[in-house]
């Protein structure tokens, strides 16, 4: 599997800088997917039919994504993006305009991030040498 993956990228023994970047990007995306999946489990059991993800996009952006089907089978999805700025923490849902979050929401976010770091990152990267996702196959 790993050989196939590498061959799909490189196809030969030589490795260009672009190919190196592609490899890094692929591994990085796989890491984010795994973080997001585990991050979604930080907030307790996920209801049946729900898909929840929570992850750190970059050093100032956190993303909460949730998908579910209602009783009529209609698909719903909501993406909340927290943007940490020098002036405070802003929130944008589903691409709508930013709004300043309340003190309570900011404190909840901070707790979630603390949990994320301690339970996800420390466990995932410090005690686990396995490659993420399909890269580990």
């Amino acid at each position: 599997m790993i050989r196939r993956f590498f061959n799909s990228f490189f196809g030969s023994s030589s490795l260009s800088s672009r190919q190196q970047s592609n490899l890094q990007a692929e591994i990085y995306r796989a890491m984010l997917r795994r973080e997001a999946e585990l991050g979604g489990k930080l907030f307790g059991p996920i209801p049946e039919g729900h898909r929840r993800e929570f992850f750190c996009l970059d050093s100032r952006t956190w993303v909460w994504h949730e998908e579910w089907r209602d009783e009529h089978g209609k698909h719903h999805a909501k993406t909340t993006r927290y943007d940490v700025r020098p002036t405070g923490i802003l929130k944008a849902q589903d691409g709508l305009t930013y709004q300043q979050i309340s003190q309570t929401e900011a404190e909840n976010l901070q707790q979630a991030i603390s949990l994320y770091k301690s339970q996800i990152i420390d466990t995932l990267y410090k005690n686990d040498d396995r490659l993420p996702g399909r890269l580990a196959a």
Partner: protein
Amino acid sequence: MNSSFGGSNSSFGFGVNGSTPDRESIKRGSHDVYHDLAKEREKMIEAAKRAVEAALDRNMHEVNSDIREVTDNWAQRQDYISINRRPEVYEPAELTESNKKTEIHTSPSIQQSVEAQPTIASARQAVLDILNSDSTQIDGVVQNPAENFSEAHRGQAAAPNPPLQSKFEELIKDANGGAF
């Protein structure tokens, strides 16, 4: 994004002579990339965590400032209320004779009130009326408009019985800021 991951490009484990890398080399190379990226992620998440904490601290500081401001404002308002609850301040003063005249003068409508404001034209007309009249004692609100105008705008009592003409000149001069 790709260029900022900081992975060690030289540690992929590929053969340096152009040969096809073996499975172990690929695996080792992938792991090297993975571990480099994992370190990057750790640093990034730690930075993101600190950014949120700093934002929260600032937010708390601002909230506390707001609370202090509201508290101060409320204290000032309490002072204001307590002052204004004193009967001598709160109760409306009795209408004096001049107040009554003012009330009569301004009460019919806003338009009348506006018209009652002393202006150069109205003052000039009022003084001309006085000059043209036989008596300075006119019944009504404005017994002597020149004197009233002068008192109202300069806070000075008019000189006792000055010649009407000089009063008029003084009035005009005063109304034009001395440029007349």
